[in-house]
């Protein structure tokens, strides 16, 4: 997992629950990484999960809810850092459709060793979008939170319907989005 996500997680905890809480959480975590996390670095996925689980426990939130809130926060942090990817779009659907073939392409240019989720899109109607998400990391709640962040940014309501299923031995997750 890239360091930028760790940095956002730290920022999320510090902003939402305070610097002291962040200190407590990081001290309580058993991390494989000793040095501080930096954006372009690559760190074990387990370290992020350790931070998330410890933090969720310390702030008394269920892990899925913590991840959703962190996803929401992550969207705004990424949009603030990379405004050029968001600014050209006036609606959430057009923006979301660029994630796989524009944003992920650019991410790969910067970070060769990155492992990004795979998205597939289908459009059942003009105000609907189905994003099929596949990633070994299965960060479904984070993705839900990210979409909530997108909705808030574009000041639009996005109803999300989810389905998890298996195909050819792989687990997929559909985000059926209805824009209104």
């Amino acid at each position: 997992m890239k360091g930028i996500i760790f940095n956002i997680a730290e920022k999320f905890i510090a902003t939402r629950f305070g610097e002291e809480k962040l200190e407590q959480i990081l001290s309580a975590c058993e991390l494989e990484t000793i040095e501080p996390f930096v954006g372009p670095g690559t760190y074990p996925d387990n370290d992020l999960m350790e931070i998330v689980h410890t933090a969720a426990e310390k702030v008394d939130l269920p892990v899925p809810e913590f991840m959703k809130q962190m996803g929401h926060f992550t969207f705004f942090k990424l949009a603030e850092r990379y405004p050029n990817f968001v600014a050209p779009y006036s609606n959430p659907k057009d923006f979301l459709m660029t994630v796989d073939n524009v944003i992920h392409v650019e991410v790969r240019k910067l970070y060769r060793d990155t492992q990004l989720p795979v998205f597939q899109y289908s459009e059942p109607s003009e105000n609907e979008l189905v994003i099929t998400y596949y990633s070994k990391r299965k960060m479904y709640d984070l993705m839900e939170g990210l979409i909530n962040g997108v909705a808030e940014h574009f000041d639009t309501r996005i109803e999300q319907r989810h389905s998890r299923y298996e195909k050819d031995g792989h687990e997929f997750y559909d985000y059926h989005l209805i824009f209104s």
Partner: protein
Amino acid sequence: MNELESYKKKLSVAEEKVKILEKMIEDRTRELYTSNQDLQRKNQDLEQFSYIASHDLQEPLRTISSFSDLFLHRYKGQLDENADKYMSIISNSALRMRALVKNLMDYNRIGLTQARTEVNCETVVREVESDLADIIYKTGATLDIGELPVINGYEMEIRLLFQNLVSNALKFHKSRKKPKVEISATRESVCWKFAVKDNGIGIDPVHQEKIFLVFQRLHNRSVYEGTGIGLAHCKKIVDLHQGEIWVESTLGQGSTFYFTIMDPKTL
């Protein structure tokens, strides 16, 4: 005191982060330098290979071409009808292959010879019009040249680009219809966008990307002459100017070729 301790700790973490990032930048720079060297070497190898391949191919081809012409000249009518026909085919094919090899060599040379200069596109297009005067006269074509800008680019290549697009527009015209070609330019935010519009036979949407590849021909050689490299030349020239080239066309209703040339001042 606690606050001071906290700032000290933050500062020390920040310093450690800076060190890690500096090391990453150094590693990445070294990596990029190595892969850049590697790419340059591979590029030189490729240039060398294609130069040798095309250059060495010319010689035996010239021999085939000369001797088949000589054969036709000396022995035409002395053997049976098939022999004359076969020899003509050999001669024409050798000629065509020479044209292909020459075009390949030209393709390789794009961008190698000169530096960027100020190029007055209107002057260039007027010169192209004058070079194509014969085909313009024969087809009864009209060229409508709009106001074209002065750009920063490779003059010889820009000239070749217009020449290819205009001669294609003249070549692929409908039978019994006089070709009409309009050349115009509009300013976009960071580049110039040029358009070469014709009233010709048009291009089926399924072929509209394929046409920019080397040696792609959509038409039988007997109907429209050419080696099929012209638009690949155009694409390479436009790439050289950090631009894009595309076509908008409806079969039977003419085509408009668009290309952009990046204005280096805006980069």
